[in-house]
């Protein structure tokens, strides 16, 4: 029971991070029907930007208020990662709209390789550790010497994720931009004819997805306290799994899928084997795509001639 509760907390934390990344996949897929393979690496880049920002604030400017540091880091990471993603879309994907179907995918794979190796060259191949920023924990319950703890950083991650998701939901449902996005998702050409600036909407979709990934990146950095140039690949694939599991194109699905993947991964590590946890995540991806390609909350896809 105690182990279960502890793993539930850990799983939900991890799931929040996956969910935030998964939204980027699902939005881009919904609007232009492409798997943005570089999204995982955008997440990794954002973690590095967060790292640089934290170092700058603590060692150079000598700040000590954790919450101020976190807030500024989040903001800086979101802005710069958004800019990176905007540029990627502009340079590598936009010229390929209307090209053959696999072209953007191959371009995205190239972008993914480019980003991770750029960070390797620019920042070095070794792990970058940060001293733990938030260390306090709350003991939720204790029995027979086993403490179930809820760390402050886990609370921060869940609260920030929930707040962002609420804001994001409002953005998609209530603002002109969200309406334009939904219009483009349904029919891009028709939306263009009705006065929606399709290019701008797609660009902004990439920027928003990257900003959410940036939040996930900073949270990841704070949670694990270490980041490496190769860290984009596996979380990226897992977040994509989450998006597929929830039903690609569906925003609540992405969050649900993220939480599920996080829970499955932590419970698998706790009860079965930690070595095969990535195998478990990848297998879920395969099984979902084969047996439930529309996901839990997605719409079945109709193939048109």
């Amino acid at each position, binding site marked *: 029971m105690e182990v279960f509760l502890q793993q539930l907390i850990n799983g939900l934390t991890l799931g929040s991070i996956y969910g935030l990344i998964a939204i980027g996949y699902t939005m881009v897929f919904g609007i232009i029907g*492409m*798997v943005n393979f570089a999204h995982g690496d955008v997440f990794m880049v954002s973690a*590095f930007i967060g790292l*640089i*920002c934290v*170092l*700058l604030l603590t060692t150079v400017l000598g700040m000590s208020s954790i919450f101020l540091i976190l807030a500024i880091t989040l903001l800086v990471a979101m802005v*710069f990662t958004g*800019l990176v993603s905007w540029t990627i879309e502009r340079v*590598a994907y*936009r*010229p390929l*709209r*209307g090209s*053959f*179907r*696999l*072209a*953007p*995918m*191959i*371009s995205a*794979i*190239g*972008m993914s*390789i*480019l*980003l991770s*190796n*750029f960070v*390797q060259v*620019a*920042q*070095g191949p*070794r792990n*970058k*550790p*940060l001293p733990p920023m938030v260390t306090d924990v709350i003991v939720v319950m204790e029995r027979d010497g086993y403490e179930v703890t809820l760390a402050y950083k886990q609370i921060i991650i869940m609260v920030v994720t929930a707040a962002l998701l609420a804001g994001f939901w409002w953005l998609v449902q209530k603002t*002109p931009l969200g309406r334009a996005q939904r219009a483009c998702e349904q029919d*891009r050409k028709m939306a*263009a*004819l009705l*006065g*929606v*600036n399709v*290019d701008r909407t*797609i660009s902004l979709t990439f920027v928003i997805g990257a900003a959410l990934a940036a939040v996930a990146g900073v949270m990841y950095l704070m949670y694990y306290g270490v980041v490496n140039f190769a860290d984009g690949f596996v979380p990226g*694939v897992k977040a994509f799994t989450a998006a*597929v599991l929830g039903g690609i194109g569906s925003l609540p699905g992405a969050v649900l899928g993220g939480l599920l993947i996080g829970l499955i991964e932590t419970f698998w590590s706790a009860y079965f084997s930690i*070595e*095969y946890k990535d*195998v478990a995540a*990848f*297998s879920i*991806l*395969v099984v979902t*795509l*084969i047996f439930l390609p529309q996901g839990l909350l997605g719409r079945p*896809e109709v193939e048109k*001639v």
Partner: protein
Amino acid sequence: MVHPPVADIPPGSLPSGSLPQVDVPSGVPNGLPGAAPPPPVAPHRGSVIGSAVTDAIVSGLLTGLLLLPLVGFRATESGSGPLGLTYRFGLVAVFAAIVAVLRLVLNLTVWRRGRKVKTGTEPSAFAALVQKAAPALRPAFFSFAIAYPFLAILLSGGLSPSRYWVDLGIYVLTYVMLGWGLNIVVGLAGLLDLGYVAFYAVGAYTFALLSTSVPLNEFFAGHLGEGFWTAWSFWLCLPVSGILAAFWGVILGFPVLRLRGDYLAIVTLAFGEIIRLVLINWVSLTNGGAGISSIPPISFFGVPFNSSDDGFAARYGLDFDSMHRIIFLYFVILGLAVLTALVTIRLRQMPVGRAWEALREDEIACRSLGINTTLTKLTAFATGAMFGGFAGAFFAVRVRFVSPESFTFMESAVILAIVVLGGMGSQMGVAGAAILLIGGMEMLRNLSFLKADFLFGPDFDPSLYRMLIFGFAMVAVMVWRPRGLVSSRLPTVFLKERKAVSASLVKEGHG
């Protein structure tokens, strides 16, 4: 809540105020937003230079801003202590300046508006040249490949000094073969396979496990004599590796091949990773991350390459030299690569090969015509996997050591980059791309002049930029030449006259 009532204007069209004529290059469906060529800032009439300068400044600033966090600062480790920061703002400024100048020059020359836009129905000049040279190209390429080790020995003056060059030849040819194998799946059948390295791994591990297996060794020692298995294991395991890899191709392919193109890509990627993770974690079988070593070396059809009386050198009256084995390895991989090419060429003319190409062009039409798409895809997948397995067995016998390190996603990406750059379907293109990418990347190591003090300094290591250039090349090829270097296609079947088909008339990827 009011949307701007402006219809979507593709970038590169005129700004409002001038005539609303939009010259989208033909071949691009008119009205499709965002399909216009690169220049994002459209110049006002008469102020070409002004707008070019503005564009250069903006893109330079953007580059600076993009590079500022990760190039301008560097988190450096100092012993075991906390990370420190070092600053490289000069570098950022240099890059920004380079981009700005480059954009300025390009805007004033290549990207200028009003430049004649290619009609797109003719094959490009380069492709036409390749087409014209094609009949001579293949024999020339093949005879050069045969003569290569002897040329290397002649030019480097002796057997031992030529080792580097022959090794490089083997390395490049391995990728040529892998490229041709993946070309069957990606180029001919149009299935994006991101897990090709899984079959390479299956082949390598099959050979490694079988050749080092003690029971097998004892079995053959009891029946066919001591040392039989060591001498013959490669030649007996090679077909087994290929067949097992093909078998895995069928097992992995069967459930996933009805998926759409990009889903298929992700699933194959997941399979590749699963196989690698299993290889790492199944320690009792594969020895985990430590890998399998002491794989028996290749033999000249049973005759070992050693200095004993039974050895290759003694038997054929040569002085013993360890290079004999290397040169033989070169010819083995050349033979395997040629086999791949020949089988592909033959298959393309058979019904199954035509079905692959038809499938690549339009899956729905294929299904309407009664082609069994699952079976067709499966044969492509299995054939490609088989050649991957052969190449894997060769890799294991060359290096005599296998570990999961060699079979990462990056390897798949490199092979895919070769196929994409080569033009997805063109055999010569793929071979050229493999030579260019693998040979070129190897040459990066030799660029010692870049280490001069006035350029990058002695700490500069060009080979670090290998994968960076790979990634950049993939993006660049997709943006500028989505069909690769050899972009036009010769149809395999034709009515009356064989005509090259330009890339822009080929529609594909609905699979």
